[in-house]
């Protein structure tokens, strides 16, 4: 499984790491959906750190596309919230 952290790079993770990744992501989502910023930065950092520690960075000359794309590490709580209301991070 290939995971991209936006603005940072791609990592190759073992498929067996997927469950934990989903779990960590769900925590971030539930915080964002809850609407209170408490714990957001920590939970999001844990998610990214998991990818960084478990994954192997893809070489710059590898042209594989990602299975999962995570938002950039400096995403704000407000920006994360926008992800759910439809405007999204990537403008056309």
């Amino acid at each position: 499984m290939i995971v991209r952290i936006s603005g940072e790079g791609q990592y190759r993770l073992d498929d067996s790491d997927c469950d934990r990744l989903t779990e960590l992501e769900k925590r971030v989502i539930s915080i964002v959906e809850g609407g209170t910023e408490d714990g957001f930065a920590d939970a999001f950092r844990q998610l990214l750190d998991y990818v960084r520690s478990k994954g192997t960075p893809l070489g710059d000359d590898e042209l594989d596309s990602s299975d999962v794309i995570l938002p950039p590490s400096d995403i704000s709580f407000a920006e994360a919230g926008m992800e759910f209301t439809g405007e999204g991070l990537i403008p056309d």
Partner: protein
Amino acid sequence: MAGLTGRMSTVVKAKVSKLLDRAEDPAETLDYSYQKQVEQLQNVKKGIADVVTAKKRLQMQESSLQQSVVKLDTQARQALSAGQEDLAKTALERKNVAQTELQGLDTQVSELEDQQQKLTDSEQKLRAKIEAFRTKKEVIKAQYSAAEAQVRISEAATGVGEQMADVGLAMQRAVDKTENMKARADAVSELEAAGTFEDVGQLGSGEDDIDRQLKQLSSTPAVEDDLAKMKAELGQAETASAPQIAPGTPEGGEAAAAPEQAQQPASGNGSQG
């Protein structure tokens, strides 16, 4: 996966497929993709230059604000020496605003440095991927039939396309940030232009909008502190100020009617020493 990743992935993939949709002929698609990639690389370079320009502008503003702080401090001193306390206070309020803005600018400059670094990293990464794509496309053109080439092209171009979309996102974020900062910097320039005055006499007595804004912005305790310090430095002791009236004195009117009585408890406390 839903939520954050789901949406990010969907948007990026939509962008990538838009990039690939153009031509039916595989060889043409390859060359077109490559051409697009090189264009994008130029855009990133331009984006980095914009961030550097924005950073320089903020740094110039920082140095001009530093000069304002010195100037306003001098003006406050002059006003106080001339017995114009209100004027001194206004100058100190403006100095306070300038100092607050300076702190804000510091943060912004380091944010922009971050952005610059990120974009530079992205540019290098994209350059490497484009180079890899260039090599691969020649191999694909030479070795595969049209049908097979189509599959391999779409694999390779999707990988580069994703990198391009990602760099595009980083650029957009950098542009948004510099735009916000520019708007703010312009606002500060206006305040700053109105905030210093050629000589103390020019300030006048009428409060304009800017004065009111400044008063709202500046933190009063800090200004009062500054004023007290400045008075002490200038040797203007607290002789003429209000605290002479003892605590518990009922009303101003009564105190004025019987000034000696009102004064007595205060001097009895030995507050003069």
